[in-house]
């Protein structure tokens, strides 16, 4: 479970790490959308070069990324194979054990597998190089126009950051409760499915009770420190475009131009 790196953050000081999180999210967002509009092989080449360039700039070891995406490799191969098996039209290229393989299928299969790979790689690079709290801040800023139509953007972002803050606490708690219950003879790792599900209840219930108590106390603590909603609040964390961000933004625009020309 720990080997899958999707969604993990690896703190480093690379150029990519230091880019403004709003910029990174916007770039990845646009990248993903136009990836589905790619047609020519030159298009794909451009995408490939951009992704590899970003990846090498993150200072994260290539082997770490490749290993971390292991379960994804499997999915990519399956997609490719399924495509070859299921496509039944066009010119036959060659036979394997009397099974005809179509040229179209190979090309399409390869295209889709590549698309899938690039999509996963780029979004993974985003989370690998951007701390959860920076993503939260960026989401709050990028969605702030929605405040006008009464979407509680600030509240959502705060909820997100508090959840992030309490995840380690709750994991510790689960560990503590499961040890306490195990010492009373509770077994939820072996036995029939039904028994195991039933054994989970003494685990979940104390967790919920304590989480609600925490939430109540936290609400008091927040109020005592003057929290009264997003109105009139200033922000300590500041998102500001630096030179590197302008350069990265410009480079991405160049990429977009190149994409349109080669399409």
């Amino acid at each position, binding site marked *: 479970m720990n080997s899958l790196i999707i969604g993990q953050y690896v703190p480093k000081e690379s150029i990519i790490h230091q880019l403004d999180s709003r910029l990174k999210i916007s770039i990845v967002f646009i990248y993903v959308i136009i990836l589905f509009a790619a047609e020519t092989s030159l298009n794909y080449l451009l995408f490939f070069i951009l992704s590899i360039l970003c990846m090498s700039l993150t200072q994260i070891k290539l082997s770490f990324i490749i290993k971390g995406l292991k379960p994804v490799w499997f999915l990519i191969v399956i997609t490719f194979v399924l495509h070859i098996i299921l496509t039944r039209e066009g010119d036959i290229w060659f036979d394997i054990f009397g099974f005809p393989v179509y040229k179209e299928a190979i090309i399409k299969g390869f295209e889709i597998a590549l698309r899938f790979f690039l999509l996963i790689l780029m979004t993974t690079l985003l989370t690998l190089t951007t701390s959860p709290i920076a993503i939260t801040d960026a989401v709050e800023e990028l969605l702030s126009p929605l405040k006008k139509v009464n979407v509680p953007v600030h509240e959502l972002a705060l909820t997100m*950051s508090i959840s*992030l803050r309490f995840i380690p606490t709750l994991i510790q708690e689960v560990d503590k409760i499961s040890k306490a219950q195990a010492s009373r003879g509770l077994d939820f790792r072996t036995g029939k499915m039904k028994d195991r599900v039933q054994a989970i209840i003494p685990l979940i219930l104390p967790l919920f009770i304590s989480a609600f*108590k925490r939430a109540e106390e*936290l609400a008091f603590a927040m*109020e005592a*420190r003057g929290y009264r909603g997003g109105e009139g609040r200033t*922000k*300590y964390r*500041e998102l500001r475009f630096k030179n590197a961000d302008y350069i990265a933004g410009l480079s991405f625009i160049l990429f977009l131009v190149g994409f349109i020309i080669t399409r």
Partner: protein
Amino acid sequence: MIEFEHVAFKYPQAEEEAIKNINITINDGEWVAILGHNGSGKSTLAKLTNGLLMPTEGSISVNGLELTEEHLWKIRRIVGMVFQNPENQFVGTTVLDDVAFGLENLGISRENMQRRIIDSLDTVGMSEYKLHEPFRLSGGQKQRVAIASVLAIMPEIMIFDEATTMLDPVGRRELIRLIQDLHKSSDLTFLSITHDMNEAILADRIIVLNDGELWFEGKPSSLLEKSDELEKVGLLPPLITDLTDKLRKNGVNITTQPLNYEELVKQLWILHSKM
């Protein structure tokens, strides 16, 4: 200054009042300890002081401002509060973010914030941990951050609601030392809630609650005089009175109740020189 006038409070579903007809005044710069057994109403009293709860009867005022919806946010700026559980009052993802939280709520400018955060973390000795996430801090360290978060808001009154109760003995001793130092070096008014007599006798004045009623109000030394009645309200006499009582029973004639070991030793020396 905090003034409670005939204050009573009942939780919505409760049958009995948690606070019953309380009259107290706490003066500027004073350190008052509130003692009482579990469920005696200490936390309720604390929450009434900054409007986390509103009294069902009577009136409360802070620095002359009556506790009403209108003055609520002004009062919360004056009264800072540190709670019992270190984990459940840590809002930020890092120490810096947590101290910033209260300042953000008050709409303080970013430059100002940075200075205040550094200053208050310095005061509690946590500056070198400013980038740490909460799960990398001990309970005592989290409580220090909680104190820094309150100091950054620059309140005039600080309430500690059993801030030391959940700490290990070392963390607890260190936090008590910090609170003592803070009181000496500032003109803040302190309201410290505890069920530990040893902690309470550090204050200028002690208030003892029993089942929501005021049972005692006065100097620590006069509370120690009543040490044999303490058990009735679910409190243990502090080690110092315990020791003094035992000495007295064994024929050592100690006249005035000592507040700490230094005073006890002084009296023993006086007795010794008279012998």
